């Protein structure tokens, strides 16, 4: 079970990265904090995908289905990012007395 040893090592690395994220959340990195947190999250997701899900070992049909999903995700995120960058600031003033309602 050599694969099991790799997976246990990867699990330890994931925990270490989670502790790093937790520690950095107290570092007051300002606007960079979300970027750093997402970078670590993406790295953790890559470990899960490559080692635990063994995507590299799967058949081409499996990878193709995931790739199609990834392309759709990229399209969705691309449109959201362009919308956020180009739209006007929200015209909503803070409420005076009544609590604001959610979405």
């Amino acid at each position: 079970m050599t694969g099991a040893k790799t997976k246990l090592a990867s699990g330890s690395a994931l925990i270490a990265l989670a502790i790093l994220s937790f520690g950095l959340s107290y570092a007051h990195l300002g606007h960079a904090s979300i970027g750093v947190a997402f970078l670590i999250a993406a790295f953790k997701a890559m470990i899960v995908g490559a080692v635990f899900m063994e995507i590299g070992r799967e058949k081409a049909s499996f990878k193709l289905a995931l790739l199609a999903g990834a392309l759709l995700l990229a399209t969705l995120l691309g449109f959201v990012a362009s919308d956020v960058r180009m739209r006007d600031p929200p015209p909503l003033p803070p409420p005076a007395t009544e609590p604001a309602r959610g979405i």
Partner: protein
Amino acid sequence: MSDAELADTPPTHDHYATLEQQAAAVKIALAIFLASEALLFTGIFALVVAYQSDWPHAFQIGIAHNTKVLGSINTGVLLISSTLVAVAVDAQRAGRRVLAGSLTLATAVLGIVFLVIKMTEYAQHFSEGIYPGGRGHFFLEHPEHGLPTFWSLYYLATGLHAVHVTVGTGILVYRGIRVFKGSLQHSLEASALYWHFVDVVWIFLWPIFYLA
């Protein structure tokens, strides 16, 4: 697959010629399902990012009031559970059925632990007057615009994720019991893939709602 393994496992369904064909069909279906699930959660992530750009201060207040320690413990719980089920897959491949079944059931137990912690978090939020839709005395004390949106998105995303954890836990309990009896290898692999997906979703939810 060896002859001994074939003799020890249930037969294929009628419409598949071989076990390999059945396994490939299961994996393709699962990949399409997971891709569609990823789109669902990414839609919610996109909402959070868009609203956060509108009301960064409100989102900072929301994160500051969140149950950071409990959420972080849950991250550890899910990462450990994902590791266990990944090792269970290897154990089943090595023919160590008891170990594989035990690790799968241990993963399910960690799923239950995750849900108990999540319910504890919700109970704490309710006691502070934080309800979905901006209802509760918390929003009278903190009339920051955008704060109700943060908490509504939090309940939506984590609630949907909790539903997935509940389903995954049920699948793992069933699969763990079947592994002891000699379940097909690809069935455990498919269950594990679903659980890893649930883990990946939480990997992104955690920084968005608890850390950033």
